[in-house]
Each structure stands twice: as structure tokens, then as C-alpha cells.
């Protein structure tokens, strides 16, 4: 076994460990799910424990795009642009059923799932999801970040 291959896999783990505890989110909040997002982010549930306590309100400083709430066709180009502005590495969380599938808004105005516009890493269903579900989704995202092949 060469020294190089052993070193590379360990470096991946070290970077993954660092990245999963420094999640700077961009909350793209459009609807009622935002209240549940705020409840999760505040002191009762305290997502600072997972290194995700600081939302950045600029996509260029953010790692994770939290899409929270219904996305209409009119809003879709804005969401795409925000995603494109984020720097690599970046992840996307679909928060609530409206972002996952369109939810019960099967109508002329609503995008039927944001994965028709941008790639999604974690889906958190619920209308709105309980803070426990959000933290569960966040931990699944952490697992995904930690075990992925790191690009840097």
C-alpha cells in the first residue's frame, strides 16, 4: 500500500469532519415553514450544537441552501440564481413538503418539487416539519458531508 493513498483517504475524513461542523446556511424562506425553521434555529432546539448556528444572508458566503417554503414558478428563476451564486462545495436541503413535491399545491402557480430546478441532497418532509425532523435532516446531511469524497 502506497503512502499516498492512505494519506488521501484520511485527509478526506479530516476535511469532512471539519465541513460537517461548519455549516453556514442560506435560508431561502418563502412561506410558513419559516416559522418552524426559526424555532429550530433558536435556543430551544439550538442548531448551533451541530455547527449550523450562523445563517449567512449572502449566497456567496453560504454552504447549505435551505429552501424553506412553497416555490412558485415566478420565484423559480430567483432560486436558481441564488443556487448558482453559491460557491463550491454546496448542498441543498428541501425543507417541508412544498419544496419536496409541491405538497398540496397542485395548481398553476407552484413548482412541483424544487428538484426540477436544482439538485437536492436532503428532503425533510412535513407540513411543516417538526424541529426534531429538521435536526434529523441536518444530521443526515452531516453524515453525507462527512462520508463524501471531498473536493477542494
Amino acid at each position, binding site marked *: 500500500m502506497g503512502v499516498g493513498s492512505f494519506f488521501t483517504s484520511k485527509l478526506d475524513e479530516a476535511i469532512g469532519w471539519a465541513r460537517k461542523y461548519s455549516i453556514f446556511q442560506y435560508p431561502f424562506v418563502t412561506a410558513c415553514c419559516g416559522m418552524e425553521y426559526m424555532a429550530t434555529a433558536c435556543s430551544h432546539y439550538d442548531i448551533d450544537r451541530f455547527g449550523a448556528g450562523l445563517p449567512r444572508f449572502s449566497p456567496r458566503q453560504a454552504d447549505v441552501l435551505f429552501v424553506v417554503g412553497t416555490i412558485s*414558478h415566478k420565484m423559480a*428563476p430567483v432560486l*436558481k440564481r441564488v443556487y*448558482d451564486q453559491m460557491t463550491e462545495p454546496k448542498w441543498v436541503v428541501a425543507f417541508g413538503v412544498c419544496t419536496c413535491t409541491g405538497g398540496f399545491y*397542485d395548481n*398553476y*402557480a407552484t*413548482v412541483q418539487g424544487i428538484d*426540477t430546478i436544482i439538485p437536492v441532497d436532503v428532503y425533510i418532509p412535513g407540513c411543516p416539519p417538526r424541529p426534531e425532523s429538521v435536526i434529523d435532516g441536518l444530521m443526515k446531511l452531516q453524515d453525507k458531508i462527512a462520508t463524501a469524497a471531498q473536493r477542494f
Partner: protein
Amino acid sequence: MDGALILDHLRAAFGAALVEAHDFRGDHTAVVARDAIAGVLRHCRDEAALGFDVLMDLTAVDYLVYPGREGGSRFEVVYHLYSIAHNHRLRVKVRVPEEDAVVPTVMTVWPIADWMEREVWDMFGIRFAGHPDLRRLLLYEEFVGHPLRKDYPINRRQPLIGPRI
């Protein structure tokens, strides 16, 4: 003024242009011919005894599949009027056929009608002749069709639009 007296006043002033009039539990409605609608509404605002200074709402109804309305005009544009001075109300309707869905604008009477007429154009595809800026209000330019028409398929998917440069 009582609603029945308002209808009597309009009937005296406009005669046959008042196609139909009825009341339901104290709410009075006048159905006016399309040619006369602009004049009737201006009269409603300017006549001191009526004094309808507020256009509460301007909307439309699609009677495509409404029981008892087969063969008639497809759309109705509905004006809800209110007088602050007299504290009375009136509903005015005008029937609009599908093949010629145009109504004169009332922006010159009540400027608030600007966005209301744009919304009706957006949702029902009824044009307002004389409106200076009849663009879609709520939906976007690329939207195909008018979603509150009864023949708009409920599960139709609009094409996704890309980012604007």
C-alpha cells in the same frame, strides 16, 4: 339611500341599458348593457344622490359550466361600489361574451381600477379597452393561458422559466 331606490334611480336615468335588477337579502344588483357600462359607473360616482366614491372590488366570473347559464354570455365583470357619504352599496355587473371579451376601462372614474383590471386580465383574459398598461399583474410574462378560466386544466404544468439575465 335604500338599494331599491338606487335601482329605481338607475332605471329612470338609463332605461333599457339596465338589463336586469334584483336583490338578495338586502344586497342590490344591477346588470348593465356593455355599451352603457362606462356611463352608468361614471353617473354612479358623480350623481350627488348616489355618490359612489369607492370602488370596493372589481372582479369577474366565468359561467362556462354554470347550471342555467348555458347559451348566455360566458363572463361577467362585477363592480362592487360603496358610498362613504351615504353608507350604501351597489353591485353592478356587465355580461361579456367569450369571442369578444372586452370591457371599457373605469380607470378614469376610479384610478384604483388599474391593478384590479390588470388582475382580471391576468386571471380571466378579459381585456379593458382604454387601459394604458394592461400587463399581467400576479403571474409572469411567459405564462400561457388564464388560470381562473373554467376550461384551464387544473393539472396543467407551465414550462419552467430560466433565470433572467
